[in-house]
């Protein structure tokens, strides 16, 4: 701020005062916000709950929701940034057709890791959210939830059962769609699991590391790439019986120093295919993607023996959403096989509870390799770790881990 004052002093004379006043006001604006946290809770759902006293009235609830959605006239939702734009039209059309809605549907590719910060800020500022429904990973959604950015869907059990035939038929349990603290808040529809993707021409399956700790082995020096984010390591503390934070950080650092590059997963996979690196830590989706395009591509995959992180994706309706009913319909509808049939063929991520070839292969692959798959919300210990990461100490640990990945 001292710098600012200096600038002002320098400029005095010719700078119109109003300019400075405006810029100072802009500076002060956030402070003002902080002092009056906007916490008007939406009341829509209480009304809905009253209307649906009988538990078996899923149909009634749905009709009511559709009626309100029609009144709202629009829904704005995010979809994964990696989803093709060609998916937007069919998703929107099918969604409208399914509920007989004649409303405007806007779906936008959004980088959730960037948008969720904005979403939390929107909530804190009391500003209306840009999107009615947002898509994000489990940990991101937990943060948004913690920041008061998601709305609970009342009677979600009945509604999901009404909308999703897999739930209605009993094939899928409710807790497979709404887990832990996110039950009734956010709805899981997609997941990927981390694995090793390797170039079969450069390394054989038996030479691959078995555990994460082995990544620090000198024989892998310069042979692999890993992404800059901590997702491959941060769930580690929840995976081991005995766990020492500092030792784990050393493991990460040794692997970081040993690696050939730190690249986005997509770039890393490309360079494994090119033959520059022998293997890469990446999610299963890339494997399917490359095989989909070139079945003869010289690559294979393997799970780690110690643990493999599972990332689940959720849809959440935003607090103060402009179109909450239409948003709810969309979030719930995205769990259905009908929606899955549209996005899955090109995105190639699995639906853990789904029934498609990809889903079956996903489950089979994990089962066969007896790989240990662990997600943030599927056990208490992981949830504890996730909560701890929210503390100052946890934050520092994560920062250190991110640096360790880059060999520091």
């Amino acid at each position, binding site marked *: *701020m001292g*710098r600012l004052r200096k*600038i002002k002093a320098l400029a005095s*004379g*010719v*700078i*119109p005062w109003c300019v*400075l006043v405006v*810029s100072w006001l802009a500076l002060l*604006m*956030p402070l003002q*916000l902080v002092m009056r946290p906007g916490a008007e809770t939406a009341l829509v759902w209480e009304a809905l709950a009253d209307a649906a006293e009988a538990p078996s009235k899923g149909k009634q609830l749905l009709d009511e929701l559709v009626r309100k959605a029609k009144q709202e006239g629009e829904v704005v939702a995010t979809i994964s*940034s*990696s989803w*093709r*734009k*060609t998916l937007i039209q069919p998703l929107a059309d099918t969604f409208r057709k399914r509920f007989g809605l004649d409303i405007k549907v*806007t779906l*936008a*590719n959004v*980088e959730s890791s*960037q948008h*969720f910060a*904005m979403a*939390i*800020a*929107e909530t804190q500022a*009391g*500003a*209306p959210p*840009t999107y009615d429904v947002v898509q994000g990973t489990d940990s991101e959604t937990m*943060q948004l939830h913690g920041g008061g950015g998601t709305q609970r869907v009342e009677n979600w059990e009945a509604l999901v059962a009404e909308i999703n035939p897999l739930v209605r038929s009993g094939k899928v349990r409710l807790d497979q769609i709404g887990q832990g603290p996110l039950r009734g808040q956010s709805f899981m529809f997609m997941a990927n699991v981390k694995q090793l993707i390797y170039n079969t021409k450069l390394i054989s399956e038996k030479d691959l590391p078995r555990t994460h700790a082995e990544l620090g082995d000198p024989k892998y020096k310069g042979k692999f790439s890993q*992404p*800059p*984010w901590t*997702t491959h390591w*941060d769930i580690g503390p929840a995976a081991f019986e005995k766990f020492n934070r500092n030792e784990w950080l050393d493991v990460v650092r040794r692997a970081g120093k040993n690696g*050939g*590059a730190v*690249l986005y997963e*997509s*770039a890393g*996979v*490309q*360079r494994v295919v*090119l*033959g*520059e690196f022998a293997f890469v830590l990446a999610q299963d989706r890339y494997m399917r*993607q*490359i095989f989909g*395009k*070139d079945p003869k*591509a010289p690559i294979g995959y393997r799970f780690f023996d110690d643990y493999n992180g599972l990332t689940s994706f959720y849809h959440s309706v935003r607090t103060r959403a402009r179109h909450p009913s239409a948003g709810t319909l969309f979030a719930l509808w995205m769990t259905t096989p009908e929606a899955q049939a549209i996005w899955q063929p090109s995105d190639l991520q699995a639906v853990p509870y789904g029934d498609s070839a990809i889903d079956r292969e996903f489950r089979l692959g994990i089962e066969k390799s007896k790989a240990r798959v662990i997600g943030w919300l599927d056990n208490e210990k992981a949830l504890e770790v996730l909560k701890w*990461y*929210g503390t100052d100490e946890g934050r520092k640990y*994560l920062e250190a881990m*991110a640096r360790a990945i*880059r*060999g*520091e």
Partner: protein
Amino acid sequence: MSASTRRPGGITTANALPLAFSWLILAVVIVLLAFVLYMTFVPSLPTEPGFTLKHWSNVASSRLLTRVIPNTAIVGFGAIFVGAFFALPMAWLLNRTTLPLRATFTTMIGITPVIPGFILAMGWIMLLDERIGLLNNVAASLLGFSSIPLSVKDSPWGIAWVLGLILAPAIFFLVAGPLCRIDPSLEEAASVVGMRHLTTLRRVTLPLVWPGILGGLIYVFMTAVSIFEIPALLGAASGKVPVLASEIFYSVRPGGPLTATFAYGAAGVYGTLLAAPSLVALYVYLRVLERTERYQVITGKGYRPRETDLGGWSWIGVGFVVLYLALAVGLPLLVLLWASLMPVLQMPSREALSKLSFTNYDGLFEGLGGFGVISNTVVLVLSVSLFVSFFSFMVSWVVVRTQAQSRKLMDMLVMVPHAIPSLAFAFALAMLGILASRWLPWLPLSGTLGIIAVAHVINRMPYGTRVMNSALAQVHRELEECAQVCGTKTPTIMRTIILPLIKPSVIYLVVWTAMLSFQEVTMALFLSGPHNNVLSVSIWVLWEGGNLGTAAAGAVAMVATTGLLMFGILRLAGGPTAGLVGREVGAAPLTKSQ
């Protein structure tokens, strides 16, 4: 003339208009800078309470001094060196000589920024990687080694080389305008005095375009040290060659379970670190510019750009340009084309050749987002280049052509956004957008094309004002004063006298700004909302989603269209040198009747 006038009545009417517009744009800059600075004291999101100094204290580490800063310096100065090595001779060859195919060459140089950075880095790895690099393998087998440790990867020099190649067009375009307009009588005078061509170039031409060159180099230095994606792909990300840009990126985005509340404040701190040396350089630059009079090379006297006939030497010139184009345009375009024809990118081989297909081009138009995205892109690119040109002209007018006391401050202020990391800048803007949607709901900012346009305009103002400063500094003040005496007001003079005189610079600026805005991803992605998707984001998203082939196909389409467009624009404008009097010179025979 470094003298400034004390005047009794404040601002004279002649300057009121440019001053008003300058302060309008600078107000936006100031607000954003203030916000970025404010964020460096906020623990997490600016909407949360709290005050912290940790972003500042975190930055201080020995690693910064021993590794990050030296690497950054190598990358910055190396890129300048490489860039200038190619750009300066090319600027002269393509603007002041009779080299064949100049328009085509200029167009190709203009296309370079459209080629996505990830493709460039990929291309260099495919060429020079120790294990798989084509050049390395060929050279190694010729020399009988198993491999040659010549790589652009994991070395600051390699990064500097690639960045220099990429940034050479920026220098080229900054210098080209002034070069077109050097009063040839100055050069002629030199040759009359008996200087040889090279000496003339060194002693007369170079000093005359020095403000342009210096401004360009400072700009390129700042750009080189703030580009993230290429150093990241070439080793900065793995911590092997940490540079400031990568430090910024990872301090902002550690990834993992806390992605949603990472500390953007740290980016502001690094931005300050980047801004400080740049501002010192800028101050030096301003001192040079103070002697404006020395550089006013368009006078009202005899004025004909002279083109040197290289004669037998022209093939060397052509060779030089072709070498650059091969390295900076040909190679990446080939890689781009190759990638777009491969289902999965792989090294060229007989097996790979059998896989060539056009499948990546199927449904490309819809894949990129169809008409909506295209029209968004066109609107964005046009409005950004228009606004940047307009506001740069206004600011430079105040800085170069008036005696306003605030002009130096203005020139510094307008340069600062260049030092602020795009990500921090976009974040600040997005935050302001959110706050605006709460307090000023009528302002169409959050999630609109407008917010991306604002980001791009502010971000490109430094470049725009560099171009305009050096262009305006070259127009002799009497040309403007004469028009005043002839009864016209400043706006008319700008339109009828100044703009036509600096037309080549303006055209370069418009084209170049459009290209950069067209290609920019970081901010456009961050600020993207439901209705403001643009092409570059579509292509980036494809790439990041693992669809390299489709992304490459999209990039090929992008390069092809922009190339054609640019070719057309330069043709319409009369080619690189013909902007001003080339045509007349060509048409009318020289007569010297006294």
